[in-house]
């Protein structure tokens, strides 16, 4: 029994979701063990339990043969279990040394900082990494890759024996990634166990020893990396039939509504070209961070592109501001409806008319009767469950809130509707209703672009699917070619 970490039967339930069910997972000293799965498969929940950020409901975690219950990140760190976040958890105003040892600064008897000691120790930890960041450097002035090195220096500083790396290469260049891999191999040689979370197949097969696949919170199996291949892993990640019923609009395409060519913005996406026609539902699939939201935000004028051309209803047009986009008939429901899409303290009626106040007012005075009529129309059309036109949206379910987002744009009679993650975090019933609505709108001639990280959704509602990874279009699929395998390959294998 030489396993560094043994997880036995760990379960975790959140309201409405069973995030993990009876998860078993082992980590040996000096091993890099990949944890894979689609978005929502339960990887981050498991990771948070290990890092002491959340307790497990059930099950057992053995660290060096000893059962442990982690109640805080501090306890995890004291045992040598360290999570290196994807979003870095650094204080930009503090020095590298202060960040590395945050929470464990050396002091003398009366609480004075022993700065030279701190800087010397941090300097050693950084040097052990082969990193040339000085311990006194202000972290806010470092590049992302170097910030990450500062985080990783914590591994040396706290003599960690279990390290969880969450998408560590998400913002690194190839050269920086190679350096990270060298660091990982070095840690391996010292007997540190590493849990490596990534979506990138080529990395998984370069650096890991074993792969455990999670799906819907259940372990699908653990494979030895050298004895398997990407196809097998992909199949384990999908593994299911499309179980939900999706309604796809009948294909009655009209004229082209929007076409873009050679769209690009430095650091976000490159060379993106596509078009969408009346009555067509175009799916845009990719992992979080692939650049999907950035592209549609550019179309809507939130942050314009650096280059590229736009044709609107067949005519070449300048990229609009959000106001102009709305006036043209291009509407966007953003990914985060709570922050960007709705005023949650106001009622449904006020939210619907908010972008169209002009149409509902005369000489600046609101015309309540018209507002009420429109509210009732969309409440019935979208089957929104609410207690009244003034009920604050905060009190409604996510599904009903999302329907109000749709109502708000639909009452402007748009020509192109862009839906960014339209069903994230909402219940199954509302999901089906929104999918049905998308189909109905397309049949009435509306062009729709649906962005989703949920593969069944994008496969179910789209006529045609574009895949994106690392800011580039990596594939276009329609008809029989729209399969889960093809989509996963298109977003995961592009770099291999």
């Amino acid at each position, binding site marked *: 029994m030489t396993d560094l970490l043994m997880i036995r039967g760990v379960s975790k339930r959140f309201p409405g979701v069973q995030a993990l069910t009876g998860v078993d997972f082992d980590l040996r000293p000096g091993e890099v063990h990949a944890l894979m799965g689609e978005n929502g498969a339960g990887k981050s929940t498991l990771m948070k339990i290990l890092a002491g*950020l959340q307790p497990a409901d059930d099950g057992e975690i053995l660290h060096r043969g000893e059962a442990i219950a982690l109640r*805080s*990140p*501090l306890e995890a*760190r004291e045992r040598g279990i360290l999570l290196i976040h994807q979003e870095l*958890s*650094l*204080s*930009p*105003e*503090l020095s590298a040394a*202060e960040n590395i040892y*945050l*929470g*464990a*600064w050396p*002091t003398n008897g009366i*609480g*004075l*900082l022993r*700065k030279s000691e701190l800087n010397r120790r941090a300097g050693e930890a950084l040097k052990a990494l082969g990193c040339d960041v000085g311990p006194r450097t202000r972290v806010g002035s470092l590049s992302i890759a170097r910030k990450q090195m500062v985080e990783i220096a914590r591994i040396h500083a706290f003599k960690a024996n279990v390290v969880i790396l969450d998408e560590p290469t998400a913002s690194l260049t190839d050269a920086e990634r190679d350096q990270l891999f060298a660091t990982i191999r070095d840690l391996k040689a010292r007997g540190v166990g590493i849990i490596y979370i990534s979506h990138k197949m080529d990395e998984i097969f370069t650096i890991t020893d074993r792969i455990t696949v999670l799906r819907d919170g259940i372990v699908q199996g653990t494979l030895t990396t050298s004895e398997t291949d990407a196809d097998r892993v992909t199949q384990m990640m999908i593994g299911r039939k499309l179980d939900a019923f999706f309604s796809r609009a009948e294909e009655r395409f009209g004229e082209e509504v929007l076409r873009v060519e050679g769209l690009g913005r430095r650091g976000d996406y490159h060379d993106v070209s596509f078009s969408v026609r009346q009555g067509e539902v175009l799916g845009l699939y990719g992992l979080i961070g692939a650049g999907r939201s950035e592209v549609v935000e550019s179309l809507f004028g939130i942050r314009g592109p650096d280059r590229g051309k736009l044709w609107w209803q067949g005519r070449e047009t300048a990229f609009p501001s959000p106001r102009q986009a709305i006036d043209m008939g291009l509407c966007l429901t953003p990914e985060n409806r709570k922050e960007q899409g709705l005023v949650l303290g106001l009622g449904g009626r006020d939210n619907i008319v908010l972008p169209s106040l002009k149409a509902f007012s005369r000489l600046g005075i609101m015309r309540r009767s018209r507002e009420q009529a429109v509210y009732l129309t969309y409440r019935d059309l979208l089957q929104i469950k609410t207690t009244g036109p003034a009920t604050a949206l905060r009190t409604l379910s996510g599904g009903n809130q999302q329907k109000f987002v749709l109502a708000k744009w639909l009452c402007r009679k748009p020509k192109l509707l862009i839906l960014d993650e339209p069903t994230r975090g909402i219940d199954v019933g509302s999901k089906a209703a929104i999918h049905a609505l998308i189909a109905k709108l397309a049949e009435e001639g509306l062009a729709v672009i649906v962005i989703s990280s949920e593969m069944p959704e994008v496969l179910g509602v789209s006529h045609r699917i574009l895949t994106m990874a690392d800011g580039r279009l990596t594939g276009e699929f329609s008809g029989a070619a729209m399969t889960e395998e093809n989509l996963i390959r298109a977003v995961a294998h592009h770099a291999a």
Partner: protein
Amino acid sequence: MNGTTVRRLAADHYVWMLLALVCVFFALLSPHFLTAFNIGNVLTQSAFIGLLAIGMTLVILNGEIDLSVGATLALSAALAIGLQNSGWPTSAAIAAGLLAGTALGFINGAVVVASGMHSFVVTLGALIGIRGLVFVYTKGNALLVEDFTYADLLEVHVGPVSLTAIIFLGMLAFFQWLLSASRHGREAYAVGDNPEAARDAGVKVGRHKIINFTISGFLAALCGILLSIRLGTAEPQAGRIWELWTIIAVVLGGTRLQGGVGSLWKTLGGVLVLAVLQNGLRLLNTPNHVELIVMGVILMIALGIDRLMTLLRARERTA
């Protein structure tokens, strides 16, 4: 030295340039401004808001705010005079005043941490409640000290510099040293800069905040005591809206209201700008209410320019 470097220096030391500017302005307009006596006077006047600003800087670094300092100083002043009038030894009365302020600061911090409410709300409540206590204790009247030697306690000068100013500068130096040299001080930056990271790393965020609120309460009390000695009276309305002047001084000094950025040296700059403005306008015989208008306008312009420079710098960094 290219344009970028100049601009960076200008943004980093903005408050000192502003101070130099207002000093030159008043020196040109009034022959009385640049005299040793007047400069000593400005330092003494700045000590009161200055003591409050030290505590406020610590609290704001944590990402919190303390609106109760003005009321706390009034209570401490009232206790120091009221208790000795009722027979307490002077030192005991002063100690009671300091203790009361310190305790109120501790309570502020404890309530903020325990309730999870924002300190704006908590200390706004404290502001009103403590002011009420002052009125109850003084029955709404100014308390006049009976032992007149009390008012002489601070009549010690080193050249033109008063003991009041020396106490303020000493406190400032001490707390700046604490900020830069102690674990508590450096962790204050971490707590304000990225609270989640600090908490995850095992920094006791709550304890930190309580300590800083307690320091703020103590310094407010000290300010109240010094004021009562200087004036020989304790007014129930003493220190009204001083919390706002204090916040302006701290922000002028470049401390970020969201926390994590700031230093007491720069806060000193902000405090001095306010004191010089007020002093200069009085030397020019500006009517009382016009003085407020002028100060309001100047401060808005000053903060506007500061904001502009911060934006320019941010743009340079990303470019």
